[in-house]
């Protein structure tokens, strides 16, 4: 699909609106629901039943999932599963899986090197795409030597599992279309930026709900949002999110366009946006006062999601150390 920049931006805004209202009604959409909304096939070629658009559109969904603190298989299956398949040399096996992803009939999940202990969406996966330097081995949960163990974590909105694939899975090794180390690097960038988008969306939701709360909550006879200490804390939240948004946008563009320095943009976006989201969610809890600390308020859901995101696919310090190799 060839569109101009302005048209693409318009399409993304429409996608955002649709996603926001769908997730407001159903914050735990099934794989079928994700597929019928057209999200799992966003990057799948049109001839395979997808929309043939880019990571820039996928990123919109990631952000909205974060905003809604949604439970879904999108990160594991659509972002990383389909993303991995798209890096493979064309083959019938690859195309069949991509078509099944777009149709919602398969939820293949990527297992990146060194990440098998915490694989998003693996417990509900139909296929495990084990990424190795030589290519991808497709394993099926339930087969001999394949173990998938769901891992409950403190963030109840995430779905992580420990994956172990021992011995030959029987399936062929599907080769990458490009240089394997570059491909694996791109997949890691994709994962990092997707999580950064999620954190950005979650943090923006927290700022909005906090602003709404302090406008109406009254103490000492006036709205607490009129107190300078509260105002300045909210201002700092906004500034941190504006900066995050710039970094995340740049990273999304770089990943979508396959820019050579995409890893730099990804490291900056991941380290900043995920750390800022924890600060913002923490301030949201603080500014909601006692009510913010209750289970009922739901602020803790966002704080936990932001905390887990900060550690997933590379800590801020880890990403900054990579950046520092250039100095």
């Amino acid at each position, binding site marked *: 699909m060839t569109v101009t920049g302005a048209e693409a931006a318009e399409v993304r805004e429409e996608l955002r609106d649709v996603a926001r209202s769908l997730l407001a009604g159903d914050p735990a959409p099934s794989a079928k629901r994700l597929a019928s909304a057209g999200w799992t096939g966003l990057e799948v070629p049109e001839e395979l039943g997808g929309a043939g658009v880019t990571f820039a559109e996928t990123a919109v969904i990631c952000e909205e999932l974060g905003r809604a603190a949604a439970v879904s298989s999108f990160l594991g299956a659509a972002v990383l599963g389909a993303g991995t398949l798209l890096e493979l040399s064309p083959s019938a096996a690859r195309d069949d899986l991509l078509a099944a992803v777009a149709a919602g009939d398969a939820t293949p999940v990527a297992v990146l090197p060194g990440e098998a202990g915490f694989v998003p969406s693996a417990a509900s996966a139909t296929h495990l795409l084990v990424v190795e330097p030589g290519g991808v081995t497709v394993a099926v949960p339930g087969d001999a030597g394949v173990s998938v163990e769901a891992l409950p974590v403190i963030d109840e909105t995430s779905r992580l599992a420990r994956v172990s694939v021992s011995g030959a899975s029987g399936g062929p090794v599907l080769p990458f279309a490009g240089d394997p180390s570059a491909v694996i690097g791109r997949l890691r960038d994709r994962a990092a930026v997707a999580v950064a988008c999620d954190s950005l969306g979650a943090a923006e939701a927290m700022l909005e709900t906090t602003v709404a709360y302090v406008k109406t909550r009254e103490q000492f006879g006036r709205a607490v949002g009129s107190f300078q200490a509260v*105002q300045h804390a909210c*201002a700092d939240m906004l500034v941190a999110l504006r900066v995050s948004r710039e970094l995340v946008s740049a990273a999304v563009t770089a990943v979508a366009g396959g820019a050579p320095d995409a890893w730099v943009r990804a490291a900056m976006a991941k380290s900043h946006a995920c750390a800022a989201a924890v600060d913002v969610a923490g301030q949201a809890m603080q500014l909601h006062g006692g009510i913010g600390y209750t289970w009922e308020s739901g602020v803790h859901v966002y704080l936990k999601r932001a905390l887990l995101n900060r550690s997933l696919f590379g800590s801020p310090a880890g990403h900054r150390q990579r950046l520092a190799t250039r100095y």
Partner: protein
Amino acid sequence: MTDLEEYRQSVRRWCADHVPPDWRARQTGVTGAGFAQFQQWWFAELRSAGWAVPHWPAEWGGGLSVAEQEILYSELAAADAPRLVLQFVAIHHAAATLLAAGTPEQRRRHLPAILDGEVWCQGFSEPGAGSDLASLRTTALRDGGAYIADGQKLWASGAAHADWCLLLARTDPAAPKRKGISYFLLDMKTPGVDVRPVRNAVGESHFCEIFLAGARIPAENLIGPENAGWQVAQQTLGAERGLTMLELAERLGHAGFRWLVASCREAGLLDDSRVTDTLAGFETEIEGLRGLCRSQVAGTSAGPADASVVKLYYSELLQRMTDFGVTVTGVPGFTALAKPASSGWESGIWPLDFIGSWEWTIPGGTSEIQRTIIAERGLGLPRGA
């Protein structure tokens, strides 16, 4: 090669030929006159290349696209070219005000003159009107075909060298405070105008007091309607901030960050992961700042408090970076007693740069005022008591 890449190459070649390699040494310990002379020379050099006022409309000698301006500022920063300090108010604040609110005659009189080196300063703040600028008490009362100005202005950057001043003065003392202020173009040679430099915390005397005692301002030098000066100032100052920040972000990203890395390397600290963690954090924040500036200039992030977001973020980042520079260079960093004139806010002489960073967190609306603006205008929180 794209047109923009060709443009970048042409700016780079020009910088290699025109930026004096020893200007920092020559501008260190220089007199006020030596500073002004050098600034006028550099401004003329940029003008002959067509880059003195890239952000102005084409009909007045500018007309570069945002992408070209970004390249220009980026290359000037990468080449460590001198900054335009003396002309800063003229090419940004004065020009923005003239273009937004000036009469055709006022524009014709001043915009070409600014290109020829006319220097401007800003007479806004007063001893009793800092953060609460609208409480200013300098008066300019109508007397036939003129206004007679009396009062005292403070923190007028570069007033000792200025030919003209952007002056806010009260023309209707009986009106509510924001409704009785007018905006004037004041000729600094007017009898009754007296300028006294104020030495700042770094030891420089860039700021000045301006005393006005019966200074006669011809009525044609009123800009915008009488008593609408507050609105004119609000409109024009926010609008030009993105442009000045675009350049400042590039300076911080190039020379500022590069020197910080160099200081760490010289101190043998680049294998200390705490140091490299901090450096990478700064690099990330600078990249975020650049994005904010680009969005603001391109008009893609039209939040009501964007100018405040950028100013607050830049000034506090500058302060944290220069503070880190001080810790990295340690006691030996304290032996450089003066930084070069004509340089940016980050000269690599970290203790002075750090102290000088309050020149950004205080003037132009303190960080506290910016946060209040962001909360009230940007987020719609109720006004404080």
